[in-house]
């Protein structure tokens, strides 16, 4: 659920346009989302009258190759081909060029062996139902689907999953997204485990596209682009504009020789990733003091990517492993989500700094702070920058995160001890955290 840790983001990215600047589209406005095959384009794109623009995923001979944003007039866009050519990104042009020169991309290697798909969920049966429908529409390569019901308040999830006998249901009573992910990893029966979120709906080729990246024995994780399922309100448009989960439409191979492990989140997010199960032995489990359900609020995936890269493994981002995600609908939820990313960024740095003795994390925190303060200064001097309220939230989030990790760590350790302690045994004493 945590796509990115803006704590780590270079100041260059949020100095361009701040999320609140997206208010050019008023709250009653919506955007259309289309997947279009470039070799068979209609003359006109038709959408709802309320759609002021369209986000177009361009496919070329079936492969997703790029995107364009098109303004619409009363929900229509005519002369579509020319409009797309004017608005398409460089990834599209690279694909067009290769096609035109008769240099099609290399054929896909045979799909990897069967995998497990794990969905961690908590009390969102409506979203989950859509997710399950999408997963059941994937070609059957022998994959097993696991739903981890994380500390549910109702039986709705269990009842929903009971309708699909081919799906394995697991209940994880201890709350926390990373706790649920670890449960899925340890219960999976296959070497490769793909994760998605309950509020997502993967493309039919999603799993195959993810798995083919594991032909390199050093690739420990594969990710893909995640696009919005709907852009029906301001919060969703803002999130997408802010960067969303998108990492572009070009294949990337992250390796610590080139990418600083702290930028591991550039690879993608937990909503769209597959891991080797051997990660448990080689790198370790997800950190149960991180991500949703803890004080650190996000960052479990970013921390995992960081540790993979630091251990010398690679992460592949495959643009054909498409997933679709329903973004938060209210501005309040969006604000909390973005604030959560700041907290998580600080938390991951605190973990590296204070628990692993990594001074590089301290350096990175200073760099981040300098970038944020530069933005504040720019704003005060009326030379761009983000709105002060945004800066304040971001900076506060980073500092809260520094402290949040220690607290979350103590709580998680207490829970672990409570779980492993024999029922009849002595009650665990107060947790001091000194034994870390």
């Amino acid at each position, binding site marked *: 659920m945590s796509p990115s840790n803006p704590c780590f983001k270079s100041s260059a*990215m949020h100095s361009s346009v701040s999320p609140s600047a*997206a208010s050019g589209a008023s709250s009653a406005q919506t955007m259309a989302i289309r997947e279009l095959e470039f070799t068979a384009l209609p003359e006109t794109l038709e959408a709802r009258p309320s759609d002021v623009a369209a986000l177009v995923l361009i496919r070329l001979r079936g492969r997703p190759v790029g995107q364009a944003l098109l303004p619409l007039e009363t929900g229509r866009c005519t002369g579509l*081909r020319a409009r797309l050519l*004017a608005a398409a990104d*460089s990834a599209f042009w690279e694909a067009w060029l290769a096609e*035109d020169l008769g240099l099609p991309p290399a054929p896909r290697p045979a799909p990897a062996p069967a995998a497990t798909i794990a969905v961690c969920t908590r009390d969102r049966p409506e979203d989950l139902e859509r997710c399950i429908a999408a997963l059941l529409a994937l070609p059957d390569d022998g994959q097993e689907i696991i739903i981890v019901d994380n500390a549910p308040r109702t039986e709705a999830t269990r009842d929903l999953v009971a309708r699909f006998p081919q799906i394995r249901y697991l209940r994880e009573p201890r709350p926390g997204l990373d706790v649920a992910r670890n449960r899925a990893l340890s219960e999976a029966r296959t070497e490769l485990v793909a994760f998605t979120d309950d509020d997502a709906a993967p493309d039919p080729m999603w799993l195959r596209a993810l798995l083919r990246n594991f032909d390199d024995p050093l690739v420990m994780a594969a990710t893909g682009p995640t696009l919005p399922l709907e852009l029906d309100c301001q919060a969703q448009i803002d999130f997408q504009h802010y960067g969303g989960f998108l990492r572009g439409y070009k294949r990337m191979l992250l390796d610590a020789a080139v990418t600083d492990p702290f930028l591991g989140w550039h690879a993608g997010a937990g909503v769209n990733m597959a891991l080797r199960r051997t990660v448990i032995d080689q790198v370790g489990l997800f950190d149960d003091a991180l991500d949703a359900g803890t004080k650190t609020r996000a960052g479990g995936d970013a921390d995992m990517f960081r540790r993979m890269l630091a251990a010398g493994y690679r992460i592949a981002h495959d643009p054909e492993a498409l997933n679709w995600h329903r973004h938060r609908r209210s501005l309040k939820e969006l604000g909390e989500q973005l604030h959560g990313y700041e907290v998580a960024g600080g938390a991951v740095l605190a973990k590296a700094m204070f628990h692993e003795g990594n001074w590089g994390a301290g*350096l990175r925190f200073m760099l981040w702070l300098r970038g944020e303060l530069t933005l504040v200064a720019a704003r005060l001097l009326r030379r761009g920058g983000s709105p002060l309220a945004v800066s304040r939230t971001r900076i506060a989030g980073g500092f809260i995160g520094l402290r949040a990790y220690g607290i979350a760590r103590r709580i998680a350790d207490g829970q672990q001890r409570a779980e492993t302690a024999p029922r009849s045994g002595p009650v665990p004493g107060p947790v001091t955290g000194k034994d870390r």
Partner: protein
Amino acid sequence: MDPVLSLIIPTHNRRALLMRLLDALAADPGRPDPIEILILADNCHDDTVAAAQARVDLPLRVIELPGLGPAGARNRGAAEARAPLLVFLDDDVIPEPGFLAAHLAAHQDTGTMADGAMVVGSYPSAPHASPDYFQLLLRAWWREHFLELARPGHRMRYTDVLTGNLSVPAAVWDRLGGLDAAFQQAHEDYELGLRALTAGVPLVHARGARGLHYEYLTKTPAAALRRARDEGRAGVAFWRKHPQMQADLRLYAMRPRGLALRHRALCAAGPVLDAGAGILARLLPGFQRRGLRGAYISVFGLLNRYWYLRGASEVLERFSAWSDLPAEPQRAPPLPLKLDLAQGLGVCEARIEVERPLQLALHHGDRQLTTTDLDPGAEPWRGHHLRPFLLRHCGAAWIEARFAGATGTEDVDAREREAATEGLARAAPHLNQSGAPWVWHEQYAQWARLLARLR
């Protein structure tokens, strides 16, 4: 029966790895037969010689040498070999099944055994995850090198010739005179590659001739810095022997300019500065332990440059010797082959294949696309180089030309042409870039444009 090929393996105190290498050869079901294997045990103090001689499962001969260095050992191996094809393999490269067969086939397929080609195979790092920054950098260098070698349309260069995994017909080896003993420690393979290229010997990459390089077991930062010093020495020898290639040398990029304080200091007080470099090198483990990746990479790069220049200064001795290095010989540049791509790529490829030019001047109708750089270290152009070149280096110009409809044969509508020009102008700077932060720059620009339109 005479062997069809002689496999020449120089080795120096790496018994365990050498045994693994021999195990891999013994287990290869596609191994050509008969072959001979020459182990050049160069100044070995471990029991390499005894262990190798005990291998009765392979047709091998062990030759003990007093410490000739790798180049001398390879020359000696070539002199001892009885087969018409010489295959060179390093002692830390474990060949994959079909390795020798692929080398042999590459010479037979192209019918080059008679004309003589030089066949290189790849030997990327054995998959090994390590948090060690040095190992990561090393692995990345090799990965990039062999990815480029295997890329469609790669123009072979003299720097692709590495003796770690190479095969040459004995006749060609003799004609070229083998490795130059003046390059005892480094770049003896580049130097051979350059002479081969100049002599018109085709350089070929054989995909099946693969091995895995277990460098992580043998290479340390200290060894890499010693190697940088050797490369500095070799750089001077290379410049002196092949002044026409100087602009391609690392030494050239590091030649003295302006006050050249570094170069003067190195010639005057090298041993004193070495102590400073030693202190700096002792910081590296601390940077590693504390996760100071940027500091490690910067300091290691600094030390690498230091030792390279130090090696060069040792050979040059005096600062004034820098100016005695031979100047680039003046030669009339060849006329580039002028091609009109509007005639069709197939037609152009066929012409390149016939003419084998050193340089191309590419046009599309009356539109000039580009003139390729003259690279004296690369093989002449081949037909199959053209399209990948356009894709990687000339994409925007090609797309523009295509939409301009300069051919007159295609009916591209004017509105589309305008749209493509507009879109391409924005996308062109990002062509062939990938990864952060380009993704975000481009995406933000898309959104900024949209929001400006909506406002």
